């Protein structure tokens, strides 16, 4: 006796009784027990989904997706000195990784030298320390930069780290046109979530448009920005907030570049994105599909881009660091596998899988290898790469995709009302939204409405940690500072002063800063010297602390 109507089914569903559990998504989204064609009424598949590689790209940015080319397996790595990190890169390439991704240490991310007072104890701890061109040379020694694509997670000092990267390529005789890779270079999400800035927002935004203009002409294969939701999510946002705030940041960059006189078709195809893949499998997949559709529509209809390449939301995915637990670290392998699969089913262009030990330390070599193998299992064993957008057409996935899109649109209107992204940052809007969501999630864990296996449920009390952890020796800081002092003693200090003076003049005159930054890098000016020179012109920035 089958059910003839939804009502008939619903009666049986109610009569059967349900578990006493929280059936909302990890973002707190209320969910129906069942989705049907009725949830998609009025949603025309032809216009809402289209075809892979066609507007609005809901089903993917390429017509052939992973049948044509698998995603790039790109493990984010960096620790200690440039020599130590260089060794890790060679290990990863040897194990079948297909792109590099540089993790810098905190002092570098803040544009500070390794001997800065605030850097004490932090040098090389959460990434690699880079102070001058000499470090860049050691970091990429023996790595074919014209054949391996390189992603660099650097934001506030992105333009001058990139200048060092270019100066290194130049010294090795590699043409800028051969270089492929991505700079994160997304300062807006720093103010919103990761909190690593140097100047107030406007001068940072100008540096970003300078870099876009420079690359459009000289480094055409480089992705000049990776507009990042990852850190927004790690800071505790919901899926919808991650989606909305990231795309709003993207619109802000587009508007700044247009206002600076750049042609949208010159810079838009080089914009890329970076999303988190968290534990809620279906919500994450829907978020990624919604991102492509929203971006394509805005680029075509609002910003009037004509070239379809300007409409593409191409993105990198990283599994959620904040979902990892220090307790029973081995089970993080399973979390990461599910999150990685969501990234693939969401149609990512590149993927990083976290290692099981990252709630405890930087990953050990063994842990990194397992993380990379996880991607290889998805690519070569699971069958997930055989069919394009395999979940497309699922009532649930399509309804979630529509709902996330609507929620994002509501946030866009709110941000507009506040006067745009920069104004909303200055008013603490994003920061408050995220802090509230983070607190609600922690409370849900504390009240056992939400669960984290091995932590607030199925905990092994008194269990001793049984995996080896990577340690960064205290000698790293001494070695790095010694290398910095050596470089400063050996370089032509008169030439450094001249190049820094020219940089300040260009900054004050409003000229494109990439040529003078490149000159500073060639002269072995340090990261901190360049930051200080620019701070003298642009000023610094402090956030009003709140919680």
């Amino acid at each position, binding site marked *: 006796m089958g059910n003839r109507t939804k009502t008939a089914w619903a009666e049986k569903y109610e009569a059967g009784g349900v578990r006493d559990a929280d059936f909302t998504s990890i973002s707190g989204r209320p969910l129906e027990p069942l989705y049907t064609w009725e949830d998609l009424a009025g949603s025309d598949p032809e216009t809402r989904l289209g075809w892979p590689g066609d507007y609005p790209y809901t089903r993917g940015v390429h017509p052939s997706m992973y049948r044509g080319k698998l995603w790039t397996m790109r493990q984010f790595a960096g620790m200690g000195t440039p020599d130590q990190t260089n060794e890790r890169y060679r290990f990863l390439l040897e194990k079948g990784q297909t792109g590099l991704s540089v993790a810098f240490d*905190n002092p570098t991310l803040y544009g500070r030298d390794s001997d800065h007072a605030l850097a*004490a*104890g932090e040098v090389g701890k959460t990434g690699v320390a880079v102070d001058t061109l000499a470090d860049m040379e050691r970091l990429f020694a023996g790595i074919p930069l014209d054949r391996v694509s390189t992603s660099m997670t650097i934001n506030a000092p992105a333009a001058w780290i990139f200048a060092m990267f270019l100066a290194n390529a130049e010294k090795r005789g590699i043409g800028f046109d051969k270089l492929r890779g991505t700079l994160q270079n997304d300062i807006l999400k720093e103010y919103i979530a990761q*909190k690593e800035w140097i100047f107030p927002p406007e001068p940072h935004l100008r540096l970003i448009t300078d870099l876009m203009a420079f690359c459009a002409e000289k480094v055409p294969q480089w992705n000049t920005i990776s507009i990042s939701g990852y850190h927004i999510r790690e800071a505790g946002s919901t899926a919808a907030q991650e989606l909305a705030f990231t795309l709003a940041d993207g619109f802000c960059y587009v508007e700044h570049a247009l206002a600076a006189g750049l042609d949208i078709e010159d810079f838009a195809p080089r914009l890329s994105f970076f999303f988190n893949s968290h534990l809620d499998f279906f919500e994450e997949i829907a978020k990624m599909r919604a991102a492509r559709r929203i971006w394509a529509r805005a680029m075509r209809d609002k910003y009037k881009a004509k070239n379809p390449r300007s409409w593409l939301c191409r993105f990198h995915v990283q599994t959620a660091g904040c979902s990892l637990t220090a307790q029973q670290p081995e089970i993080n392998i399973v979390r990461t596998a599910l999150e990685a699969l969501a990234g693939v089913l969401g149609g990512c262009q590149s993927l990083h899988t976290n290692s099981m030990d990252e709630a*405890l330390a930087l990953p050990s070599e063994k842990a990194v290898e397992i993380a990379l193998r996880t991607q290889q299992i998805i690519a070569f064993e699971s069958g997930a790469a055989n069919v394009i957008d395999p979940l497309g057409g699922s009532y649930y996935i399509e309804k979630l995709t529509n709902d996330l899109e609507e929620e994002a649109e509501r946030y866009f209107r709110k941000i507009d009302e506040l006067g745009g992204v920069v104004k909303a940052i200055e008013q603490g809007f994003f920061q408050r939204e995220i802090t509230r969501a983070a607190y609600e999630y922690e409370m849900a*864990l*504390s009240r056992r409405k939400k669960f984290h296996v091995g932590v607030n449920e199925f905990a092994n009390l008194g269990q001793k940690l049984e995996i080896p952890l990577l340690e960064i020796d205290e000698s790293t800081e001494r070695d790095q500072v010694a290398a910095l002092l050596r470089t400063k003693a050996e370089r032509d200090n008169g030439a450094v002063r001249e190049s820094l003076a020219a940089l300040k003049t260009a900054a004050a005159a409003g000229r494109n800063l990439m040529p003078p930054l490149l000159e500073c890098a060639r002269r072995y000016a340090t990261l901190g010297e360049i930051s200080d020179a620019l701070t003298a012109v642009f000023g610094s920035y402090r956030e009003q602390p709140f919680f």
Partner: protein
Amino acid sequence: MADRKIKVIIAKPGLDGHDRGAKVVARALVEAGMEVVYLGLQQTPESIVRAAVEEDADVIGLSILSGAHMTNFRRVRELMLSSGLGDRLLTGGGIIPTKDQEKLQEMGVGKVFGPGDDLQEIVEYIRANARRVPG
């Protein structure tokens, strides 16, 4: 004495922008009836202890996910001792390996918390261990 709220300084020393945990804990402590002074980012051991003296804080909580926990906890503890705050609780949280937690305890640092630790447990630990000396 019993009327005075427990006063907690929460700070992020050094170059570390990961402020999710610090803010969540700050809020949980306030909800639990404590007074929280959140100093925010890019603090130095000196600025933190100076604030603790000015506020006459019972507890200092450091949030460190940058790997610089040994350097910062050691320096803050030294400054607390030399500033007459030796009887106050120094605690905190972040990505801090067990081995280092033991070394921190030898230095006079209290329990430090990590990913997954329950908010209620943190609240109760601070309530039980905050300085409660009359006058």
